């Protein structure tokens, strides 16, 4: 019997898991994929928004504003790369200038600090490659960029180190409640019993909710397609740059990533199927053209990857974070679209507050360790490098030459408390395959290392999903 079961190991579930691991509670996280951070968390704009954008008085506005300042400490504790590079909303004409002034005012009302309207000239000093048609911009200095996958991996690893359990490959198929106890049924898995349930199931949050509570919201999947550009393009912009927002959302943006690439997108495709993560030529083309309005010199000639992510858009227009009406003990953390990542730390605290009000006892552990130490070999000091090399010379062997990742880094990624078991799992933790060769050179080497370290045959190593096999057998 668990005190709390969390369904979904994305950034929402991960933040709640880590926060709950501060207390004397028996907590388990259930995840249907082969790894944590495999849903919406792995495919988004990777931005920590300043918080001027959501409607005033919404949960989104409150939790974004509260969440943003928490990232410095979390990322320091968990060794997650995070940079406050600032964001710009660019205006091209009088109407848009009025709009960014309204956003500025809204930001002030919400309580967002360090905002400024930039003049034409000030904008060009900050972003020399901006379109000649841009008349000005709203600067929000507290906006930042992050690696949401590393964040989530570290959050869950930290939770696990502090006593939380994690079960991967667990697809929840049913939930019943009897005598105040929830029973979770998994596809070909043992049932899990708990007093409290946190529904952080992302694009499936409505489905999970409806298993045990009265249906009262829907998740409307909205896909976003992106390009990732080579690091050689990394200097084309210095900030997160948005166009003036319209009805479709924040629009197609361009931003540096925390690893030095450029990300451009997303499209905004409304779909029925939450698993349809296809990219399409038409919408990628629109994303490319859209970004050229902001930065005319951008080309996708040095694209290294295209991908699509699914936003868990709620039909209510706001985050759904509450105890499900009529189902005491069942908590939704649902409809977590943008700014869900930015709000995540505050959302978790807000949710846990609601759980406490509903009777969850929060007794702090004596020995909570907030720290995850997680640095790549070449990011360490010379002194640390020399020490590590003496312990294990494999820290000196570079496996991924695009991102300068050593065999020692890959061994760490595999042997950590929440270690990688797939090629993409290694990639998310330490980046071999994220560079310009996209795993062409390092893929077979990483596969060999995974097979060796886990004592599994090569053919058993998958890319990511259960049936995403890479090899079909030995040669003749």
């Amino acid at each position, binding site marked *: 019997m668990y005190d709390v079961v969390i369904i979904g190991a994305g950034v929402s579930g991960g933040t709640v898991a880590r926060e709950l691991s501060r207390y004397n509670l028996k907590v388990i996280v259930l995840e249907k994929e082969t790894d944590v951070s495999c849903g919406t968390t792995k495919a988004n704009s990777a931005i920590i928004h300043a918080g001027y954008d959501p409607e005033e008085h919404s949960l989104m506005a409150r939790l974004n504003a509260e969440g943003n300042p928490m990232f410095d400490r979390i990322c320091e504790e968990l060794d997650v790369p995070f940079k406050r590079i600032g964001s710009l909303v660019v205006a091209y004409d009088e109407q848009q200038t009025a709009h960014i002034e309204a956003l500025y005012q809204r930001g002030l009302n919400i309580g967002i600090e360090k905002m400024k309207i930039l003049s034409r000239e000030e904008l060009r000093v900050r972003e020399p490659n901006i379109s000649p048609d841009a008349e000005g911009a709203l600067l929000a200095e507290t906006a930042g960029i992050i690696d949401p996958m590393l964040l989530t991996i570290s959050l869950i690893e930290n939770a696990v180190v502090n006593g939380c359990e994690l079960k991967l490959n667990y697809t929840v198929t049913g939930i019943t409640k009897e005598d105040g106890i929830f029973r979770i049924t998994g596809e070909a898995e043992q049932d899990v019993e708990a007093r409290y349930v946190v529904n952080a199931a992302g694009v499936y949050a409505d489905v999970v909710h409806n298993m045990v509570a009265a249906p009262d919201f829907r998740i409307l999947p909205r896909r976003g397609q992106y390009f990732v550009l080579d690091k050689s393009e990394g200097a084309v912009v210095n900030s997160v740059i948005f166009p003036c927002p319209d009805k479709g959302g924040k629009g197609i943006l361009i931003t540096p990533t925390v690893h030095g690439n450029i990300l451009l997108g997303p499209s905004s495709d409304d779909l029925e199927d939450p698993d349809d*993560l*296809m990219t399409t030529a038409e919408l990628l083309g629109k994303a490319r053209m859209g970004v050229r309005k902001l930065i005319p010199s951008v080309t996708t000639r*040095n694209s290294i990857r295209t991908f699509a992510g699914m936003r868990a858009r709620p039909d209510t227009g706001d985050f759904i974070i509450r105890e499900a009406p009529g189902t005491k003990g069942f908590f939704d953390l649902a409809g977590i679209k943008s700014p869900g990542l930015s709000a995540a730390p505050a959302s978790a605290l807000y949710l846990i507050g609601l759980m406490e009000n509903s009777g969850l006892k929060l007794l702090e552990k004596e020995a909570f360790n907030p720290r995850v130490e997680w640095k790549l070999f070449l990011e360490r000091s010379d002194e640390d490098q020399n020490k590590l*090399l003496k312990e294990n010379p494999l820290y000196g062997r570079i496996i991924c030459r695009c991102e300068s990742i050593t065999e020692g880094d890959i061994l760490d990624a595999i042997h950590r408390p929440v270690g990688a078991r797939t090629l993409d799992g290694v990639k998310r933790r330490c980046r071999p395959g994220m560079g310009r*060769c*996209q795993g062409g050179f390092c893929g077979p080497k990483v596969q060999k290392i995974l097979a060796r370290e886990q004592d599994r045959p090569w053919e058993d190593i998958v890319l990511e999903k259960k049936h*995403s096999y890479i090899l*079909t057998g030995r040669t003749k």
Partner: protein
Amino acid sequence: MKSKYDIIVIGGGPAGLAAAVEARENGINNILVLERDVELGGILQQCIHNGFGLFYFKEELTGPEYAQRFINKVNEGGIDIVLDTIVTSITVDKIVSIMNTEGKRDISAKSVILAMGCRERTRGSIAIPGDRPAGVFTAGTAQRYINIEGYMVGKSVVILGSGDIGMIMARRIVLEGGEVKAVVARSSFPKGLTRNVVQCLDHYDIPLLLSHNIVEIKGRERVERVVIAQTDEHKQVIPGTEKGYDCDTVLLSVGLIPENELSKLAGVDLDPKTGGPVVNESMETSVEGIFACGNVVHVHDLVDFVTEESRRAGRNAARYVNEEFNREGEYVSFSTSGGLTYAAPQRFRYSNLPDKLDVFMRVDKVYQDQFVILENEGRELARFKERHLTPGEMVKITAPKEIFTGCEGKVRISLVPRGDKT
């Protein structure tokens, strides 16, 4: 390994090996070859098919056999080999920083030869739409899995791109019991060598779909299907021509990119047309004493030409170390037009020209019965007769030194149809 060398060669593939051997044969006995893999030979080691060496050795060798000839020569002395080692930077002053299981080190050289080769263009760089399942490989990666590691990458394969590696892998898959549904090419002509079209596709009844493209990859976990469509003369998809092909694997042979990240760190000027360093008649880059050769300069289709070019680099690096290098006079640059996409080397100093200069070029499409004409300030220097030119086969002309006497500024190289009275 010493801390100082006369010449450091970056890369132990065919280019680096030939350059090192040639430098030694020109009197340098203090050479270091740095190789990132655990053996010498580079990509040749996974090219177990034959057809290498027809020009250079006048016999047909496999890739490993061709490599071994140079490995044997390298091992004759005067050349230190350090394997399993990555070069992390090269400075203008020719300090080479390396890293391996023994740690990090800086080594200095009088001259550096860049021979890092190239990498394959990936799915991401051509943005093929669709799902992103397992089973999409670059042809070279699949070749490594099959020929070096001994594993099959799939049973039923569609190959995009008619480059040489793609065609060679088509045959390899059939020989291993797999099925190749089609080789799909965006261009209206094969991008690889004609002999590979015949020996790898025709002989095995593998359909070559020219002027086609993969417009979608389907399969959420592993590749299940691709959609192929016809393309027009601008390589745009013709709507309504889409057709599905069931398969579990997609191989990509869609181009090679010279790997010049280190060259950039050394401050070497790159040619946007080749993607490699701008080199002169001696294969010297824009940084004095830093030479370059092989696929890092421009992508070759025959290793034999890589060897010739790399010997030129090695010979001149030796001259540089021995202070025999002639820097008199101004540079004359080649400029290409009329169907020629680039020329390598890009420039020369007359005083330093050998008796005969090999110039490599590529064409943008298929041409019959042409003259390659060299002109300087309206004056024709020479013309070379070419019967059949295709983008898949590098054009090579050998120009005697004396034709360049008195040249200044730019030498224009262009194609003119034979029969035209120009």
